[in-house]
């Protein structure tokens, strides 16, 4: 009696997982999202390992400025604020010696809802304020770009935004591109409407 029920329980759990398998789940337009548009981030001590020029404040402060840029959009309800407790991690790691990935955002979504995320900045790059410093990756551009991905926004491919949107893929040394364009705001509002 017990062994049959044990088998039934195991079969039930295994079957439940297969129902939600990628064979049945859809991707593309059914983009996972957070259950709430109000999210928090925290800064790991690994950010101290970033090569950061003196023109800018500490990476965490610059990340907070970038978070404010996405928070203050009139066309979206999304907010991202700093906290000291468990939240979306902002951290640094060796993503490969340059030229390599400058930064990376990760999101985890079991069953279609984002439950965790983090952003990793590459310790092998020199970051700074490209308006002032030479031979740096502009950190505000990078931070605004990655925090845009936390809303699960994809890269901006509008040709008119090529030189302005922080969300366009690709960045060169000394390039400054900190804008959140109307297309970016519209995309944000599409996922998290005001």
């Amino acid at each position, binding site marked *: *009696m*017990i062994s049959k*029920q*044990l088998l039934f*329980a*195991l079969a039930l*759990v*295994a079957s439940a*997982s*297969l129902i*939600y*398998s*990628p064979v049945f*789940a859809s*991707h593309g337009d059914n983009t*996972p999202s957070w259950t709430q548009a109000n999210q928090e981030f925290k800064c790991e001590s690994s950010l101290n390992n970033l090569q950061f020029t003196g023109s800018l404040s500490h990476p965490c402060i610059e990340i907070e400025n970038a978070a404010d840029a996405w928070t203050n959009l009139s066309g979206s309800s999304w907010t991202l604020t700093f906290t000291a407790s*468990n*939240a979306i*991690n902002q951290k640094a*790691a*060796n*993503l*490969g*010696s*340059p*030229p*390599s*990935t*400058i*930064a*990376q*955002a*990760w*999101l*985890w*979504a*079991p*069953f*279609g809802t984002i439950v*965790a995320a*983090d952003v990793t900045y590459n310790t*092998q790059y020199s970051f700074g304020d490209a308006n002032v410093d030479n031979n740096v*990756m502009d950190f505000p551009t*990078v931070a605004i*770009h*990655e925090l845009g*991905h936390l809303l*699960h926004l*994809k*890269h901006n491919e509008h040709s008119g935004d090529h030189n302005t949107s922080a969300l366009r*893929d*690709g*960045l*060169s*040394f000394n390039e400054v591109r900190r804008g959140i364009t109307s297309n970016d705001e519209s995309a944000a509002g599409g996922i998290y409407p005001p």
Partner: protein
Amino acid sequence: MRKLATVMVIIAAIAVTIPVLYFTGFMPMTVSSHSLSPIVEEEELVEASELVIHGTITDLRADAVFEDNNNMLLPFIFSTWTVVATDTIKGTDTEAAQFKTIGGTYRNIVHLTDHPSFEMGDEVIVFLKKDPDSIWGESYYLVGSASGFFRIDENGNARNELRDITVDVEEFKSTLRSLDRQS
């Protein structure tokens, strides 16, 4: 008493099965990653690369790595691609090489990414290097991420989507060899 024991067995079975399903990749999960790639031109691509080869993608293996994130063990998927070389442009003559990218599918874990991805049979030129202290470990990875590969089309043109450039593949290889000699 018997019913209580039965319920406890069922709960225990579920408690054991769910972690097993999770860490073996059978629990469905969507992972997304979005990267920012540097814009890298040919001169820097050649200089930074240890190996540049023209070849065909013939194999893919995806692996899951679980890492701690706020006391949750979350999966990262890495794909290891095999490229069989028809021509080694820089580095030791190679029959085949393997390199890693982020993303892929491991059992029921789907890791969607804007990292470079390939199809079996794709003809490519890839720029590869190693950095053992990085997330790539002892594996080759693409120099400049999305800047570090060109896809060859049926007309013999090599294209990089990130930089939106298309060049004749033989002219391109000649340019790369010339840059390598100069560096």
